Structures are given as structure tokens and as C-alpha cells.
């Protein structure tokens, strides 16, 4: 008979000690580590987290990187579209306008206004710039006055001459000075003679205007600027607002206000809510009854009306930016949600086995609250807090938008939207950028909140 050991040597040889072994369990993870792992898997939430961090960095570091004064008004650069610095012509100082009056012109009171001739020639006087366009023309025989029209598209007929700028009385007054809201680009001026009614003939001159600033303004930017040179102006990547202030700098400072209220108001009122809800839930009985009655009452107040009422009651005097009153008003009116949430959680946990076991082992109230009850409600509260941030940002924006929030000149995203919406159709960038910032911030917090809820509270996991 064959030896079984020699026939199947491998099967019956002693097993060598190896270092390989299989894990019977995963490493133990704390609640927060587990939540973090789940959050990392959620791409939307992670992207939102990056946006939130980016916004905070934008707000804190922004003013040191982008060193433009947000309150500096440059009236020569009002409502400028976004640009990375444009060049402007340095112009001589403005000279006083002298009207040209010709001698020996005769008005004929009987002439038919509609059949008057057009003027023979229009001449530009001086250097036309966005600061002013001056021109003179040869007098028209028999005219008792002239009408001046301006347009930015080439006029084809009598009807398309554009805006009537001025009506000059006196046929011998043959010059005009236009300084009304000029911007870089081409303008067409038309001169129409009149005598009672306007002539059907007209003469047009076109003028190309370059963006320009006066010498003294130029020298305040760069001391050795000379007339006729091109001067490079500072970049305005997001354009300027209706007072010529840099939009990017204002958005950074507006972020300070909006995010300050957005972060701190919820933080403070959630803490207040935890305190009230915790006391209410833990002690129960009469205290609970009264606290909940107060909660119900505060909840019944019409929120925005009382926001406004409290804001003015806490006083925003002249020169006050109105941030502090808004913070107080938000805290006073918004703690109820967190209080109810905490109370409900504590009521549930109070009766749970592990708390009862701890109590049986002689744990004191304070120990129970801080060791068992609060840490176990923290997840839910963190989710609540994440959703409270966008709603606080919304509230600030709404209030500032209707002019009841942050007082000018302090910028906030909401008040910038309010300023921008007035000229939305002409200068959309003044409205769109702050609106975009509000929307992206709120969006990021909402998505982050969704992600956190899924990660922290498996019971409340949103169905997808």
C-alpha cells in the first residue's frame, strides 16, 4: 500500500505560517468618519463643499488680492461693461464753450418753415470726445432757429434723425455744445433749420468718439500723462456700477456682508434654539409647556413684516450700515425651527435604552445632556444649519432688495441687485453678477445640505 503522505505530499504537509489573513471586520469608524466617507462619494455635495470653501476664500483673501477700493466712484467710467482694462485718450482740459453768433443774418418772419434749405456745412469745433462735442454750421437763409438731433445709427430719412437734443431760437445762433451722456462710439448729429415749423431738409455729420478723460483726471492716475496719448485704465473684470465703482471689489465686500449674515445669524439662532429646545425637551412639564407656547407664538409672527419692524426698532441711525439690527432681528425671529427640532430629538433620545442605562449607572443631568443627548442630535442639527444658511442669505437679499436691509453705501449682494435691476435692460452686468453670486451660493448650500442629510442621517435619506 502506498504511503498516503508520499502520494499527496502537498495535502498532508504542515501548513506554513503565513502573514496573510482575512479581516473578519472593517476597521471601526466613528459616526463622523463614516459620514465623511459617505459625503465624499456624493459628487454634487463635494463640489458644493468646494464652492463654499471657495466663496469663503474669495471673501477673506479677495480684498488683499484685488486691491480696488469698492467705494471709489469714477464718474468717467459709469456703468462700464466688463473689460480687462481699456485705453482712453487723454484730452485737454475743457475750455469754456463760446457760442458762435453770426452778424448780418436776417430772419424772414414770413418764410415757410418746411421749405427752408438745409445748412451748407457743419464743422466740428475742437477735439470731440465723450466729454463734449461742439460744432457750428453755416446759417440758413430765412431761418428763425435750428433743431439739433442725435442718433447712433445712420439716419436715412427725416423720421430717423433720433433724439431731439435742443431747439435753438435765433437764426444767427449757429453752434451747439453736446455733453449729454456721451459714450465711446459713433454719433450722427443733424441740424434742421426752422421757422415756426421745421424744415424737411437736414444735414448730418458723423463723429467718432473715443473714450477719453481730462488731463487732470489722467494725471491723478498716472502723473506723467500727456494730452493726446492713450492711457491704460485699470481692469474692471466685472464692469462698473452706476456710480463708476468697481463691481468685483463691491462683490467681494458685499460677500462679507451677505456671508457674515448668512453664517452667523443661523449659527447664533441655532445655538439659541438648541438651548431652548434642549431645556424644553429634557425637563419637560411646565417649562416645556411654556417654552413651546412661546415658540408657537414666535412662529405665528409674519416673518418679513416683523423682520422689517424689528430692524427699524433696533435702530439703524444715520451712518449705520444696518447689519447688526438685521442680525438681531433674524435671531429673535428664527430660533423656533431649531428649538422644535432639538426638543423632538431630545424627547426621543431621553427614553432610549442607552440613555436610561447611563442614568441607571448614576449619570447626572449635565453629563447626560452633553455626553449622550447633544452629540446624538448634532447630525440632524448640522443638516438643519446647512439649510438655514441659504435661507438667511435669501432673507438678507430680499430685505436689501426692497431697500429695508443693509444701508448704502455698504454693498451687499441684495442691495447690488436692487441697484442693478433699474438698468437691467441697458447694463445687464450690474444685475447679473450679484444675482449669480446669490444663486450659486444658495445652490451650493442647498446641495451640500442634501448631501449632508444623506451622509449624517441615514433615516432621512432622500429617495433617489
Amino acid at each position, binding site marked *: 500500500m502506498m504511503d498516503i503522505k508520499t502520494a499527496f505530499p502537498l495535502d498532508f504537509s504542515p501548513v506554513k505560517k503565513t502573514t496573510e489573513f482575512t479581516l473578519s471586520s472593517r476597521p471601526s469608524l466613528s459616526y463622523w468618519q463614516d459620514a465623511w466617507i459617505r459625503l465624499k462619494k456624493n459628487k454634487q455635495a463635494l463640489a458644493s463643499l468646494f464652492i463654499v470653501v471657495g466663496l469663503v476664500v474669495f471673501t477673506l483673501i479677495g480684498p488683499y488680492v484685488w486691491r480696488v477700493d469698492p467705494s471709489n466712484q469714477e464718474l468717467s467710467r459709469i456703468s462700464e461693461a466688463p473689460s480687462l482694462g481699456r485705453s482712453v485718450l487723454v484730452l485737454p482740459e475743457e475750455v469754456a464753450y463760446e457760442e458762435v453768433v453770426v452778424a448780418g443774418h436776417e430772419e424772414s418772419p414770413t418764410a415757410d418753415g418746411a421749405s427752408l434749405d438745409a445748412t451748407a456745412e457743419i464743422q466740428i469745433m475742437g477735439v470731440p470726445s465723450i466729454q463734449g462735442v461742439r460744432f457750428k454750421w453755416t446759417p440758413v437763409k430765412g431761418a428763425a432757429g435750428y433743431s439739433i438731433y442725435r442718433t447712433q445709427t445712420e439716419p436715412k430719412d427725416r423720421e430717423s434723425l433720433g433724439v431731439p437734443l435742443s431747439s435753438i431760437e435765433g437764426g444767427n445762433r449757429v453752434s451747439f455744445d453736446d455733453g449729454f451722456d456721451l459714450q465711446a462710439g459713433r454719433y450722427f448729429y443733424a441740424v434742421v433749420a426752422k421757422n415756426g415749423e421745421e424744415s424737411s431738409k437736414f444735414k448730418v455729420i458723423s463723429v467718432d468718439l473715443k473714450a477719453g478723460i481730462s488731463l487732470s483726471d489722467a494725471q491723478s492716475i498716472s502723473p506723467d500723462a500727456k494730452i493726446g496719448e492713450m492711457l491704460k485704465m485699470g481692469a474692471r473684470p466685472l464692469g462698473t456700477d452706476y456710480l463708476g465703482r468697481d463691481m468685483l471689489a463691491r462683490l467681494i465686500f458685499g460677500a462679507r456682508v451677505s456671508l457674515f449674515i448668512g453664517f452667523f445669524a443661523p449659527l447664533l439662532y441655532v445655538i439659541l434654539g438648541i438651548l431652548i429646545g434642549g431645556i424644553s425637551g429634557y425637563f419637560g412639564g411646565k417649562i416645556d409647556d411654556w417654552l413651546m407656547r412661546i415658540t*408657537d407664538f414666535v412662529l405665528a409672527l*409674519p416673518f418679513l413684516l416683523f423682520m422689517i419692524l424689528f430692524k*427699524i426698532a433696533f435702530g439703524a441711525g444715520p451712518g449705520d450700515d444696518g447689519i447688526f439690527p438685521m442680525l438681531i432681528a433674524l435671531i429673535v425671529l428664527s430660533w423656533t425651527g431649531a428649538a422644535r427640532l432639538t426638543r423632538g430629538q431630545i424627547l426621543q433620545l431621553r427614553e432610549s435604552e442607552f440613555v436610561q442605562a447611563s442614568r441607571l449607572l448614576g449619570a447626572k443631568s449635565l453629563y447626560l445632556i452633553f455626553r449622550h443627548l447633544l452629540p446624538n442630535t448634532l447630525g440632524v442639527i448640522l443638516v438643519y444649519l446647512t439649510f438655514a444658511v441659504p435661507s438667511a442669505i435669501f432673507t438678507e437679499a430680499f430685505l436689501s*432688495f*426692497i*431697500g429695508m436691509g443693509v444701508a448704502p453705501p455698504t454693498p451687499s449682494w441684495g442691495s447690488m441687485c436692487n441697484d442693478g435691476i433699474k438698468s437691467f435692460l441697458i447694463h445687464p452686468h450690474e444685475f447679473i453678477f450679484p444675482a449669480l453670486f446669490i*444663486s450659486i451660493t*444658495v*445652490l451650493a448650500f*442647498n446641495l451640500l445640505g442634501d448631501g449632508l442629510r444623506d451622509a449624517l442621517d441615514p433615516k432621512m435619506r432622500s429617495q433617489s
Partner: protein
Amino acid sequence: MLSYVIKRLVAGLVTVFFIATATFLAMHLVPGDPISGAKAMSPEIRANIEARYGLDKPVAVQYVVFLTNMMKGDFGISFTQQNRSVNDIIAGHFPISATLGILAVLIAAMGGVLYGSIAALTRGKWEDRTVMFLVILGVSVPSFVFAALGQYVLTEINKRFDTEILPVGGWGTFSHMLLPALVLGLGTMAFLTRLMRSSLLEIVNQDYIRTAKAKGLPTRRIFFSHQLRNAILPVITFLGPAIAAITTGGFVVESVFAIPGLGRYFVQAVNQLDYTVIMGLTVFYGAFLVFMVILVDIIYGFVDPRISIAKGKA
């Protein structure tokens, strides 16, 4: 049932009383008064005006007068608009706000139920994803942005067709209401869509749905007579707070679309420190909201017979 309704109404009245008190206190904390803002006046005239509005009396007396007048339904006379009573202002402008609000709630509720159902029925497919993306957008973009964009698009459309298809602002006809009501209802619609979707998805796994399927009922029938009817309940509960949210949002929409509603009046009154108007409107709005919530709760009791409101557990 009746005793529950009475109980809720009494509780509502108490809440309104507290709202009135809080308003009164807040108004008397406000620095400055409505008279001092006006032109310089001799002490005699000032005394006369103070006497007319009862400002010469001690605060406690003013409070009692305010409360008794309020109980009679009299909110007093405006400070800035001579001889116009607050009741007058409410009667003139509240119907406008209310019409706009009702239309907005209707749009929000119908849209919410429709889109929520679509999302739930096409769960995980592109329709669902699109709807949910729009929902997130709807809750994240402030209503004034929608208002501005809506106006812009409308202007462009009107320009394109060279007629006024829908007016861009103002008030008067039904066509004036459509865009503002849509803008006002969008946020709530987004919220209701999400609510409707999750409520429908919860119900899909219920036993009675499985039973209905096992019986061989057509899908359409299951959806309309089992799923929808049960899933719509949370949406109805939310309508109370939704009305509140929509009246609040009305402030912004009324200002963007130049609608002469009560919200705009309130903002104006606050700017001018018009005591009586501010107090009157706050109490009025507060009472309105409180009773709206009660009304919705009572309706809820009728819709869902499982909830016995007689025990006060609605």
C-alpha cells in the same frame, strides 16, 4: 369637530392679540416719530396733531386705545396720507395682493403636483433628473431674479412680434397678473414638487399599492385613485405655510412689477414711519396668516378622515 374649530379659533385670536402687542411695542421702540420728520412747526400745531392721533397720552393708555379700536376693526388714520384710514388702504390694496397670491398658490400647487408626479413616475430617468434640477434651481434663485429675467424675456417676445402679447408691468387685467403670479409661485412650486415626489415615492412601497397591482388594476387607475390621493396630503398641509411664504414674497414681486398691492404700501409706510399704517398692516397680515393656517388644518381634517382633529391632533 365644532369644539375643535372653536378651540383653534380662540387660540388664533390669542395669537393675534400677542402679535398686536408685539407690534405696538416694536413701534414704540422705533426712534423718532412720524410728526418730527415733517416740516418745522410751532409747538401749538404739534400739540394739536399729537392730540389728534392720541400721541399726547401715556403709552399704556395708547395701548388700550389701540387694542379697543382694533377689536372694533378700526386701525386708525394714516399719518402721511391725510384723512385716509388704514381700513381704507387695506380695502383698496389687499384685494390686489390677495388676487395675486391666490393665483400664485394655484399655479404653485398645480405645477407642484404635476411635476412631482412626473418626477416620481419617471424616477431615475432623464425626465426625473430634469425636473429635480429645475427644482434645485427654483429654490436657489431669488424671485427678483426670476422677475427680472421674466420681464426681459417678455420684452424681447413683445418686440419680436411687435405687439404686447403680455404686459411687462402694471396692474389691471388678467394678463397683467400672469407673469407676476408665476414668478411669485415658482419657489413654492419647486418646494411642492420635491414634496410631492418624495411623498409619492414613499407610497409606492405600501401594501395597498401592491394589492391593487395584484388585483390587476390598470396603472392609470392605481395612480389616480390610490397613489395620488394619498400622496397629495402633505402638499395640502404645506399650503398653509405656503400662503404665508407667498404673501411675504409678494413684497418683492409687487415692487418689481409695479403692482399697487399691500406689500408695496407696507414698505412705503415703513420708510415714512407711518405708525398707524405699519401697525394696522402688521396686525392685519398676522391675523390673516394665523387664520389661513387654521383654515388649512380644518380642511386637512376633512380631506384625510384618518386624522381625527376632534382630539386636537391635526
